[in-house]
C-alpha cells in the first residue's frame, strides 16, 4: 500500500512541478509581461516584481525563487496589476466563495446522482428508471453555461424567486442557482454511471449466489451490490472534481459571485500574469491531490488491489 501511494506521489509531484515550470516559462515569454519591456508597468509594481524575482537575475534563478516561494511559504508573489496587493491576497478573497458553492454542488451531485442511479437500476425498466435515464441524457447537453442562463430565465425573470447574481456573504438565495447550475450535469453523469454499473453488478454471478442463499433484496443491494457498484463512480470523481473546478469559472463570471473564477478571468483580461499563474497552480495542486486521494481510496476499498 505504501509502495502504491509512493508510486502515485511519483506522478503527482512531477505533474505539479511541470505545471509550475510551464506557467513560469509562459509568463517569461509573454509579450507585454513584466519581463518584457513592451508595456510600461506602474513603478510600484515594477519594484514589487523586482524585489520578488530580481529582474536582473537569469531566468533559472527567478524560477527557483518562484518555486521556493510557493513550496515553502505558499507565496505566489506580487500582483502585476495592483500595486498594493499580492496574489495571495487576491486568491484568499475569492477562494472561500468558490469553495462554498463548489462543495455544495459536489456533495449534492454525488448524493443525488448515486441515489438516482441506484434507484433506477433496482427499479430497472420502470418509470423511475426512464426518468433517471431521461434526466441524465438531457443534462449531458446542459453544461453549466447553458444551465446558468436557463435558471435565471426561470427563477429570476419568470418566477422572481431568486436573485440573478451576487453573493452577499453567501446567503442561501444567492447560493442556490450557482449550486444547481454547477452540479446538474455532473449529477446526471454520476446517476448514469451508477445506474449502469449497478445493473451490471446486479446481473453478476455473486449477486445470484446471494439471492440463492435467500438473502432479502435490500440486504443483497446494500451488503453485496453497493460497494462493487460504486467503484466506477469513484474513478469518475476525479474528472468530476476537475470539471466542477473548471466550471466554477463560468459560474463566478455569470453570477458575479466574486469567486476565484471571476478573479481568474479579470486577471486574464488585465494580463495580471502572476494571479493567473497562482490560480492555475493552486487549482492544479487541488485537482492533483484530489486525484491522488481517489486513487488511494480506490486501492483501499477494492480488496483485489494490493500493491
Amino acid at each position, binding site marked *: 500500500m505504501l509502495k502504491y501511494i509512493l508510486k502515485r506521489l511519483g506522478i503527482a509531484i512531477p505533474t505539479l512541478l511541470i505545471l509550475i515550470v510551464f506557467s513560469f516559462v509562459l509568463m517569461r515569454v509573454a509579450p507585454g509581461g513584466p519581463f518584457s519591456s513592451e508595456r510600461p508597468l506602474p513603478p510600484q509594481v515594477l519594484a514589487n516584481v523586482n524585489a520578488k524575482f530580481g529582474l536582473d537575475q537569469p531566468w533559472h534563478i527567478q524560477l527557483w525563487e518562484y518555486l521556493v516561494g510557493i513550496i515553502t511559504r505558499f507565496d505566489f508573489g506580487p500582483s502585476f496589476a495592483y500595486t498594493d496587493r499580492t496574489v495571495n491576497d487576491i486568491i484568499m478573497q475569492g477562494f472561500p466563495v468558490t469553495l462554498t458553492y463548489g462543495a455544495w454542488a459536489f456533495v449534492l451531485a454525488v448524493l443525488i446522482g448515486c441515489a438516482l442511479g441506484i434507484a433506477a437500476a433496482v427499479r430497472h*425498466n420502470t418509470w423511475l428508471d426512464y426518468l433517471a435515464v431521461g434526466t441524465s441524457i438531457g443534462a449531458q447537453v446542459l453544461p453549466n453555461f447553458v444551465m446558468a442562463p436557463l435558471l435565471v430565465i426561470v427563477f429570476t425573470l419568470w418566477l422572481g424567486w431568486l436573485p440573478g447574481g451576487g453573493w452577499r456573504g453567501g446567503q442561501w438565495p444567492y447560493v442556490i442557482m450557482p449550486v444547481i447550475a454547477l452540479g446538474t450535469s455532473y449529477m446526471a453523469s454520476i446517476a448514469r454511471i451508477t445506474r449502469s454499473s449497478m445493473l451490471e453488478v446486479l446481473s453478476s*454471478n455473486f449477486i445470484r*449466489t446471494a439471492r*440463492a*442463499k435467500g*438473502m432479502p433484496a435490500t440486504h443483497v443491494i446494500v*451488503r453485496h451490490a453497493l*460497494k*462493487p457498484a460504486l467503484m466506477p463512480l469513484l474513478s469518475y470523481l476525479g474528472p468530476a472534481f476537475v470539471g466542477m473546478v473548471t466550471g466554477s469559472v463560468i459560474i463566478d463570471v455569470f453570477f458575479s459571485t466574486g469567486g476565484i473564477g471571476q478573479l481568474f478571468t479579470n486577471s486574464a483580461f488585465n494580463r495580471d500574469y502572476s494571479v493567473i499563474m497562482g490560480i492555475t497552480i493552486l487549482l492544479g495542486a487541488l485537482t492533483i491531490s484530489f486525484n491522488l486521494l481517489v486513487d488511494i481510496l480506490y486501492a483501499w476499498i477494492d480488496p483485489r488491489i494490493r500493491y
Partner: protein
Amino acid sequence: MTMLEVTDLSVSFRTQAGTVRAVDKMNFSVAPGQTLAIVGESGSGKSQTVMAAMGLLANNGEVEGSVKFDGRELIGMKSGDLNKIRGQDMAMIFQDPMTSLNPYLRVEDQMVEVLMFHKNMKRKEAIDRSEEMLKTVHLPDPRRILRRYPHELSGGQRQRVMIAMALLCDPKVLIADEPTTALDVTVQAQMLKLFAELTDKFNTALIIITHDLGVVAGLADEMMVMYAGRVVEKGSVDELFYDPRHPYTFGLLHSTPHVQQGRDRLAPIKGLPPNLTNLPPGCAFNPRCAFRFDRCVKERPALIVREHNRLSACFYEGEMTEHDMEEDLVHDREKDVAAT
C-alpha cells in the same frame, strides 16, 4: 417420498427476437438421498430449469407450471417466504467459483450471513459453525480461510467454500449447476467424492447439472437428458448408459472418452445445437440424427414410457450401434428406410 416435485415447468424469455422457450414442460422429482443428473449441451435449458425452480431467472424470464418443495408451491410464492426456503431448505452451488463469490467480502462475511439470517445465530456462533462446515468439506486451516477474500483462494478452495456455504443450514435439496466444469481434472475427482460423501451423510436430495457423463456415472442414480428445452430421455443411470434409447443419448455416450473400453476414436455428434428461436420442424434433434426417417421431420415424438420407469422421445425402434454413426452407412440405411 419426494422432496422436490416439478410438474409441467416451462420457461420462456422475452427477447428482441421474440419469445424464446428455453424449457418446455419439464417433469421430474427427487427424493431424499437420491441424486438426479440433468444432462445436455449448453443451451439445452438444463440450467434454466433449476434457476426457475429457485426463483433466480433473469428479469425477462417467465415461468409456467409448478415446482413443489415438500408440498409447498414455489412458483408465485412471495419473495419473503421464498427467501426462507432458499439457502435454508434448498441450496445451490454454481458453475463458476471464480465469479460466484463476492470479491469484496471476506469468506467469513459471506458464510455467516446465511446462518444469521436463517438460523438467527449470533455472529460468534455463526463463525464457529462456518468453520466446522469448512472442515466438513476438507478445507485445511478453516480459520484462516474464513479471513480470506475469494481472490486469495484457489479454484478448488473456492468451490469447497461454495459447497460449505450451501450446506450450512443442512438443506434438504441441493442443486449443483456444473459444479466441476471450471476446475482442474484432479480437483474434479475430489469434488465428486465430496458430493457422494455429503449426500450420504446428510441424506440430501441432489440435483446435478452437467454435460460431463463421467460426473453422472460416478454420482447419479437417475438421469435426464435434455435437448433444445425438452427432456428426450429419462431413466436410471445404469439403464441409460448400457441401453440408450434416444439417438442423442447414444451420441453423447459415444462422444465421451471411456477408459475401460478404450475406443480407437470418438464419434462426435455432427452439427450444432439448434437455435431456440427457430427450431427445426418435427423432432428438434432430426438435423443431427443418424437414425432419422421421414416421420421425424413431420412429427414431434412425445416423451413416452418404455419399460418400468424409462421414458424416451423417439420414433426409431431399432438397434443402435456405433457402426451406424458412420456416414456412408447412415446414407445407405436411410435409403432402405425410404424404400420400405
